[in-house]
């Protein structure tokens, strides 16, 4: 693949300024070198708008929600529900009662694995995941299958890191009760054909959960167009605060599923004899939620919307192509994951060099990358490698940073071989 690096945008501008200026954490030195942050798939940095929204929340309307008649509580409740509405529009949900605030992607997937398991999975049934899932989209299904006597089936992939759709079709039989796949692989960068995956599952009468942890910050998502039944993502990977995430679910499914956690706010009436559960989305939000996180997730969504998701996608794809072209020039370096459809994550393997060594040296040169299995051990097993060096991009990264990265990588390799 030959990429014309001429057309690549060097940096993303926001109101005429480099967007990086919105991110205080980027303007620091580590070990005396200016920081380059390429660990965005793990978590992104936060813009001032989000950080200020948090301080503002705690300095003004901080209060518990939903139950108070007093001013602060009303204001906080309103802001909480406005944020829910913002997220609902962002992913084009039919209604905001389909949008549940969770702790993060992992929490959302566990919620569905547990409740869907009780509702619909029995001895002899099966669940389909894929070969490139994050542990968070493997272990909850393993636990659930263990409890329910069901089997976990895995869609295999090819060397390039693309799912084998033929094999997927073969796996789809009447035992399959749910399919759970990632939209974008956090290790390989592969963008999976989730729309097709959902379509095929629905032909089999099977609902689909999409792990959008690595998609929602890079690709515009329309849950109605995808027609997914569930979709989970995390705030902290999309410029938002930690400890908050979203689980989208089709109303008809969420109505049917039993509640997950019990507690305040998710009930209508409680007696010691029994409990009547609340309406959606509250049925799935037990206890005091992460009010700060939920309210200020709106600022993160607004930030993305203001930059424009299409512009973000185009820019980040440009960075990915630029970086891929550059690293291919370096002897010994191999790209792990060569799917045709890719976004934002670039995994590298250096012949004869342990990824940990590369990570440590790059760190000392001021560059934060992630090394290891990226919570996708089965992917490492597939390629028979101990881990990769992964760069993952966000809007504030630049081609200059990639240039410094390639120089540094070259220097590290020279030290190590």
């Amino acid at each position, binding site marked *: 693949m030959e990429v014309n690096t001429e057309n690549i945008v060097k940096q993303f501008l926001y109101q005429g300024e480099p967007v990086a200026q919105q991110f205080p954490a980027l303007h620091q030195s580590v070990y005396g070198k200016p920081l380059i942050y390429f660990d965005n798939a793990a978590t992104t940095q936060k813009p001032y708008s989000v950080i200020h929204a948090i301080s503002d929340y705690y300095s003004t309307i901080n209060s518990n*929600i*939903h139950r*108070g*008649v007093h*001013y602060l509580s*009303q204001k906080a*409740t*309103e802001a909480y529900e406005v944020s829910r509405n913002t997220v609902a529009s962002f992913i084009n949900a039919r209604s905001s009662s389909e949008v549940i605030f969770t702790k993060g992607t992992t929490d959302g997937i566990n919620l569905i694995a547990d409740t869907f398991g009780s509702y619909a999975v029995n001895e002899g049934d099966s669940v389909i995941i894929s070969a490139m899932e994050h542990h968070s989209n493997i272990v909850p299904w393993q636990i659930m299958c263990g409890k329910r006597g069901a089997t976990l089936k895995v869609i295999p992939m090819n060397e390039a890191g693309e799912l084998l759709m033929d094999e997927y079709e073969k796996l789809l039989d009447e035992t399959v009760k749910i399919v759970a796949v990632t939209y974008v692989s956090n290790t390989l960068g592969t963008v999976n054909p989730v729309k097709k995956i959902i379509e095929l599952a629905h032909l089999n009468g099977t609902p689909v959960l999409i792990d959008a942890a690595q998609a929602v910050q890079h690709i515009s998502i329309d849950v109605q167009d995808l027609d997914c039944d569930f979709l989970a993502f995390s705030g902290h990977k999309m410029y938002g605060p930690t400890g908050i995430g979203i689980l989208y679910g089709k109303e008809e499914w969420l109505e049917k599923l039993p509640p997950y956690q019990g507690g305040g706010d998710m009930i209508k009436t409680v007696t010691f004899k029994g409990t009547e559960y609340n309406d959606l989305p509250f049925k799935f939000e037990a206890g005091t939620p992460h009010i700060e996180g939920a309210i200020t997730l709106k600022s993160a969504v607004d930030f993305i919307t203001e930059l424009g998701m299409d512009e973000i996608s185009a820019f980040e794809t440009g960075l990915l192509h630029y970086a891929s072209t550059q690293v291919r020039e370096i002897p010994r370096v191999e790209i792990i994951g060569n799917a045709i459809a890719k976004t934002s994550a670039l995994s590298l393997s250096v012949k004869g060099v342990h990824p940990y060594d590369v990570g440590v040296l790059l760190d000392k040169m001021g560059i934060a990358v992630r090394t290891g299995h990226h919570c996708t051990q089965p992917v490492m097993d597939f390629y028979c490698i101990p881990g990769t060096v992964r760069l993952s991009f966000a809007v504030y990264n630049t081609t200059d940073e990639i240039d410094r990265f390639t120089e540094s990588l070259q220097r590290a390799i020279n030290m190590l071989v």
Partner: protein
Amino acid sequence: MTINEKQDELIEEFEYLTDWVDKYENIIQIGKELPLIDEQYKQDKYLIKGCQSKVWLYPELRDGRVYFTADSDAIISKGLVSLIVKVLSGFSPTEIRNADLYFIDRIGLKEHLSPTRSNGLLSMVKQIKLYAIAYDSSLLNR
């Protein structure tokens, strides 16, 4: 008087009450004018969901117009439902379902329309509109 004239009358009445406590004093007063629901209708069927207090609301269609009676175990909720009944009672189902209740915001009660579950103005309005729609489509003709 039309629905909007009734709303405007209320807006004017509240305009001079700048202190919040006075506003609520007035709401309590208005609650006293509420046509009370017959005790026999104080059933769960006529209870409005989403109130921290209990509000019962009973609709009746007479000569093509809907008349409401109501009550609450809380005085302020009674005042709130009374405001709405004042504005909407005695109009046709079509008029009611099409009504744009701008007065709520204008007299400063918008907070009661927020989707919190502690108060029920929103639920009251919703319920009344549902009744109107039901009458309008003759689903509930008696």
